[in-house]
């Protein structure tokens, strides 16, 4: 296949030198590494079609890759296959402020869309923590979330159209400039499909008008359950904040020590509540939220109205992961989501497991939508500790599934949570997932072996074993 590609692909689009291939051996989950057979970095849709058609003819696996910031090993290469890097599909094709949409290529960085839309007073809402680096194509493939999902939704709610190349080299146009599209919602199906159903070559995203004003409230609590109740209290009162985040005491102390955000280090938990809208409504809502927080036992509530104070309040939360990296040699990040009402109970369960496994855990999470990111602290240099951390993680995900939740809220399954899938889904649903894969990719060439475990694997496991590792890209904030 390489000989064939060399005949027509420009030399700079093909990477085969072993040293250069190393750069592609993992994504944001470096516990898993494999060197690909080759890397192809196309620049045109026509090249993508021809590359896929060639791979189809030669039965060569293809792993599409965006910025490589994913946290579940979704872009882990296949040693017998090629990595299809979409990095050079980096153009914003058009911004249509009147219809509030932008057409972009998949390699465009998430934040670059909002920057390009800013002169029109518009922005792209989903903001995964890696937004300065992650690509919009990868966001679609993972159905990425972020801090503002509670009010503005996930990637799937903010994308209106896709152009997708199928494994046999056909182009599909799904959705577009209108708000909806006839037929089955294939647009939704492609979101979060982890590069297994097609290769995205163009995306039409929705843009939103930038809110006039923003306020951030920082509330301290003497007990974790009180903070969890306050979350339910705010939502129950009919307020949907733009962001609603929680940190427990170890997270507060680690963050404060790192960035000096002015967090109360003696608090058992803090809540960060972001409200946006017009100045009038932000002020009215801030008053109500402050009252609710106090009624639920907040020992202190501070309100940030100016951009500098808001940024300071957020700084601690946004640097929580690297801050934890300073207090522990290694940590393992989980991504379970639970119904909000089970928050206090699941947090207590995690604390119980922490004692059982003898490993500390730090909790930072999107409280508003029940998306937990417990960070299990361990030292990979100590024999057996990594395995202990993995078993602990497994038990946390089981707890999430038992509470009616899911093993992954926004990081994806990739290779990391294949075994956990066996806990969440029965064979009938897993079979259906495999059937869907067959519909789009009968030869199984796109990102093989990811996202959906084989029934055989689940049967062999009987119980779940989750593997993981420490985070790369330490320079990126992680929410």
């Amino acid at each position, binding site marked *: 296949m390489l000989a064939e590609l060399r005949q027509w692909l420009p030399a700079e689009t093909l990477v085969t030198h072993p040293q250069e291939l190393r750069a592609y051996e993992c994504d944001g989950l470096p516990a898993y590494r494999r060197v690909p057979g080759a890397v192809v970095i196309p620049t045109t849709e026509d090249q993508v079609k021809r590359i896929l058609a060639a791979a189809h003819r030669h039965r060569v696996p293809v792993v599409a890759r965006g910025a490589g910031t994913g946290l579940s090993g979704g872009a882990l290469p296949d040693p017998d296959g090629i990595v299809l890097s979409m990095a050079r599909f980096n153009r914003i094709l058009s911004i249509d402020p009147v219809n509030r949409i932008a057409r972009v290529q998949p390699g465009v960085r998430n934040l670059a869309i909002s920057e390009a839309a800013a002169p029109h007073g518009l922005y792209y809402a989903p903001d995964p923590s890696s937004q300065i680096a992650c690509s919009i194509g990868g966001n679609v493939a993972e159905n990425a979330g972020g801090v503002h999902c509670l009010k503005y939704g996930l990637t799937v709610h903010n994308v209106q159209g896709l152009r997708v190349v199928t494994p046999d080299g056909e182009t599909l146009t799904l959705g577009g400039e209108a708000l909806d599209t006839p037929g089955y919602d294939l647009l*939704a199906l492609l979101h979060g499909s982890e590069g297994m159903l097609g290769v995205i070559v163009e995306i039409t995203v929705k843009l939103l008008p930038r809110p006039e004003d923003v306020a951030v409230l920082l509330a301290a609590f003497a007990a974790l359950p009180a903070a969890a109740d306050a979350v339910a209290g705010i939502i129950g009162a009919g307020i949907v904040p733009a962001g609603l985040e929680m940190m427990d005491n170890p997270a507060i102390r680690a963050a404060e020590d790192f960035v000096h955000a002015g967090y109360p280090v003696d608090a058992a938990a803090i809540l960060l509540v972001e409200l946006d809208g017009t100045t009038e409504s932000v002020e009215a809502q801030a008053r109500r939220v402050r009252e609710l927080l106090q009624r639920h036992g907040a020992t202190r509530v501070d309100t940030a109205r100016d951009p500098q104070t808001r940024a300071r309040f957020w700084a601690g939360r946004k640097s929580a992961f690297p801050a934890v990296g300073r207090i522990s040699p290694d940590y393992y990040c989980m991504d379970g989501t639970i119904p909000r009402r089970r928050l206090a109970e699941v947090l207590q369960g995690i604390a119980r497991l922490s004692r059982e496994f003898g490993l500390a855990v730090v909790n930072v999470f999107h409280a508003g939508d029940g998306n937990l990111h417990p960070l299990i602290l361990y030292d990979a240099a100590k024999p057996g500790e990594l395995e202990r951390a993995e078993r602990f993680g497994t038990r946390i995900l089981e707890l999430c599934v038992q509470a009616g*939740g899911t093993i992954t809220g926004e990081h994806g399954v990739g290779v990391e949570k294949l075994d956990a899938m066996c806990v969440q889904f029965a064979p009938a649903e897993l079979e259906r997932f495999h059937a869907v894969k067959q519909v789009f990719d009968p030869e199984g060439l796109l990102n093989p072996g990811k996202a959906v475990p084989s029934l055989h694997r689940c049967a062999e496991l009987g119980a779940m074993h989750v593997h993981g590792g420490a985070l790369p890209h330490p320079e990126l904030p992680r929410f």
Partner: protein
Amino acid sequence: MAEAAIARLRERVREAAATGTALEIVGGGTKRFYGRSVYGEPLHTTGLSGIVHHEPSELFVTVLGGTALAQLEARLAETGQMLAFEPPHFGAAATVGGMVAAGLSGPRRPWAGAVRDHLLGVRVLDGTGQLLHFGGEVMKNVAGYDLFRPMAGALGTLGVLVEVTLKLVPLPAQTETRALALDQAQMRSTLERLWRSPQPVTATWYDGEILYVRLAGEAPDVAAAARRLGGERLPDDTALWQDVREQRLPWFHDPRPLWRLSVPPAAPQIPLPGDWAEEWSGAQRWLLSDSDAESVRRAAASAGGHATLFRGDPGEDEVFQPLAAPVLHLHRRLKAIFDPHGVFNPGRLYAGL
């Protein structure tokens, strides 16, 4: 009780699969006009009635598919919540399952999202009688392929919606509707201005003479937006928006076929003869016209959208804009994995599906 009803449905589906009998899934039977005609034995879902789980401090509800939509909405209103997409009922008997299957959203859709945007999970009975569970009760869930959102708008061709979980939103604190007498050009520029700025707009309706704009949200926001917008305040606006949603306004009383054109909101006036009205800040346009289907579809496509023969007799033709060949091919194959014997609502969405 629900389990017994599910068992009966399952039995019925298995029989149909074994004998190759077509079934027409019927909830309240209120939207049978929508889509192509189905010739099949009725499969009633009304035995599947009840709210399974709803707590006011949560923003979701789990409900059996045959539950009356009106009953669900009444319960939500008591707790200060609503379905953000304001689905049309088209009759008192409308069910929640039918609402999801039809995938129709009401006046609030462009600002709040559609049915599919608020669907969190489904339990669905497939064409072999197997009960499958996709999604769940949580807002964020990326485990496995998304096979629940595609149930919205599939018109029952992939399975029977036994149970659905829907995301909810709080009722707005304040609502006010303004009426502005505007010509086409003024209407378009007013809508464009509103669409591009963070205004608390939640519905628009224009019948060629008057633009109605509903504002909803925090009281001071609504008051400020109303002042900026001008026009007259409509004293009681609830009836207007219900009548828009349910197509009960006199404008809809007409013997001509009713077309729905879904286009980019700022698309210029579409050159087709007939009477026009529009919602969704211009993104949903209604056309009463005797124009031939081919012309309507071509005009919708060149405006960047698509056309549906919402009410009217399509004969043997399609109701929805025909799909491109590779997309239709995927539809057929997806249908085959959920309903291999072609039991459910054959041909209702597209011929052969």
